[in-house]
């Protein structure tokens, strides 16, 4: 229902504006803080207009890092985070699209069981299985490696479920037409299923990239070298120093940097992403 009355419009705008201010103000503060020097932030009276330290802060953060604690340039952390998030997103999509393909299109013994086992793992988030997972990764000698960061997180019931639901909406006749057209199972997958799933893949990529990027507990556990640190952990380490002053301008700069890749992913994939979630056209 779309109404068009001035009074209601005003009310709608008011509510939306309040909402935006509540959400956006802290972000604005973080961006603001990344443009001052440490002293200005520390004295408690931060101006509401940007300062002049932006270039200094950003170059220092990216190439050097905070002075005391980790001394790790944030540029490296971002690379680590990026590799992890990409690995998780791409790995999850690969594994879940293949398992959904198997569950929907192949008739093998215990197919239903397989699906339900996958489904049940939805109830087991990383935190629940973290100890056994850590043990396995440690025994395999994967601590402080990208493989160790990515591998345990790529099995995805959510993704499998999403693809399964999508595959079930594809008419059987399409598979049969492919069969008559001489396309085997793999050709059907490559030529028909994947092109049709593009929007679902995009939606899943956005969700999983952000999920991977925001991982905290798992990287915290299995990375010990500071060169393997991810940016989310980097921020945390910058502000928990007890014996020294927190370099808030650096922490805030890092926080702003940490926001950028997920935002970019959302911006660039948004059109596909929304289409993937509301897909009706066949």
């Amino acid at each position, binding site marked *: 229902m779309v109404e068009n009355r001035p009074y209601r419009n005003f009310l709608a705008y008011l509510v939306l504006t309040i909402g935006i201010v509540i959400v956006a103000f802290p972000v604005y503060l973080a961006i603001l803080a990344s443009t001052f020097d440490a002293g200005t932030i520390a004295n408690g009276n931060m101006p509401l207009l940007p300062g002049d330290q932006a270039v200094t802060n950003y170059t220092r953060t990216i190439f050097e890092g905070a002075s005391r604690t980790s001394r790790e340039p944030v540029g490296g952390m971002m690379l680590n985070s990026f590799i992890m998030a990409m690995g998780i997103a791409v790995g999850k999509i690969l594994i879940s699209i293949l398992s959904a393909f198997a569950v929907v299109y192949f008739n093998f013994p215990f197919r239903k069981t397989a699906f339900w086992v996958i489904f049940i793992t939805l109830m087991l988030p990383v935190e629940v299985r973290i100890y056994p997972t850590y043990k396995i990764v440690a025994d395999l000698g994967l601590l402080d490696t990208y493989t160790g960061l990515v591998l345990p997180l790529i099995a995805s019931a959510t993704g499998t479920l999403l693809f399964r639901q999508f595959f079930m909406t594809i*008419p059987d*006749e*399409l598979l*049969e*037409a492919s*069969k*008559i*057209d*001489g*396309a085997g199972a793999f*050709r059907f997958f490559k*030529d*028909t299923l994947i*092109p*049709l799933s593009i929007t679902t893949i995009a939606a899943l990529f956005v969700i999983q990239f952000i999920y991977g990027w925001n991982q905290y507990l798992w990287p915290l556990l299995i990375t010990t070298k500071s060169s393997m640190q991810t940016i989310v952990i980097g921020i945390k380490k910058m502000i928990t120093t007890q014996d020294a002053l927190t370099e808030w301008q650096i922490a805030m700069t890092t926080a702003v940097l940490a926001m950028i890749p997920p935002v970019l992913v959302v911006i660039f994939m948004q059109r596909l992403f929304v289409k993937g979630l509301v897909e009706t*056209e*066949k």
Partner: protein
Amino acid sequence: MAGVTLDTVRKVYTGNVEAVKGVSLGIKDGSFCVLVGPSGCGKSTLLRMIAGLETISGGAVKIGDRVVNEVEPADRDIAMVFQNYALYPHMSVYDNMAYGLKNRGTPKDEIEKRVKEAARILAIEPFLARKPRQLSGGQRQRVAMGRAIVRKPQVFLFDEPLSNLDAKLRVQMRVEIKRLQRALGVTSIYVTHDQVEAMTLSDQLVVMSGGQIEQVGTPAEVYRRPETRFVATFIGSPPMNILPGKVEGPGRVSVGGQTISVTDMRDGLAPGSAIEVGLRPEDVQAGAAGSSSLTMDVDFVEELGATQLFHGKVAGTEFVVQASTGQIPADSRTLTLSIDPTNVHLFDPQTTKRLGRA
């Protein structure tokens, strides 16, 4: 080119549901065979077994001289047109038609030649670059047929290809399918539940019911001489009237005390035994009482424009008469129907088989 032979083909689904109960049928090379029957009669299953989309539980399917029971659908040299067209939504019209050829490793220029030719025949040349969703139902239907034509298969299979179209387009496409099949001369098997499609398209009409063939013949044969009561009531619109009657003697039966003559009647039927009398609504005439006539009480009249349908009862049983408008006064309360003895069909009430001359 090749004919298709079915030899006691059976389909049993898990749980012992027998969908097709031993069907034997010969389809001549180049002919148009229509399988018709109510839903659930096994016609689609039979077609899908010929296509290779369903496994064959028993018997043999032969395309030409080759038994294809274990042959992959792609290697059976068939092409199929589906009810919902099953076009690949992400491919252009051109790619939809070219896909099967590409998978077979046909050279590019050959593919292009065949696709262009099929597009010309079907008048879809302007749409080759479009996606299926940008086409209307009729155009999609043509693309689906184009996809079948480019393959130059031995056999075309159609699975209710017109049921997703509106009534007007359906008639138009029906004519086109017929014309196309004549021009290409490819053996075609067509499944439908629409008896008008079945009558108009087929060289060979196969009426199915309950997983079995009821009757095979040309449309005229099936219409003129239905072998079972099922065929009699299924083919023809409005359906044939069936009245309970009694055998009076050779060439004579009675319905509710009124006697009529029959030409096509089996010899040696015991007088007094029950029999079913079939009369097509279009075969009975209003006329004077005579040696072979029935009286009918009219309940109401349906106007169809060129014709009128008189609904009523003969000897307590529902009866419909079709007459040209104006032939019978629309306010008639009772009609005297003169019955042409050659138009009476007799059926055994038990076996429902025709009791005609051997």
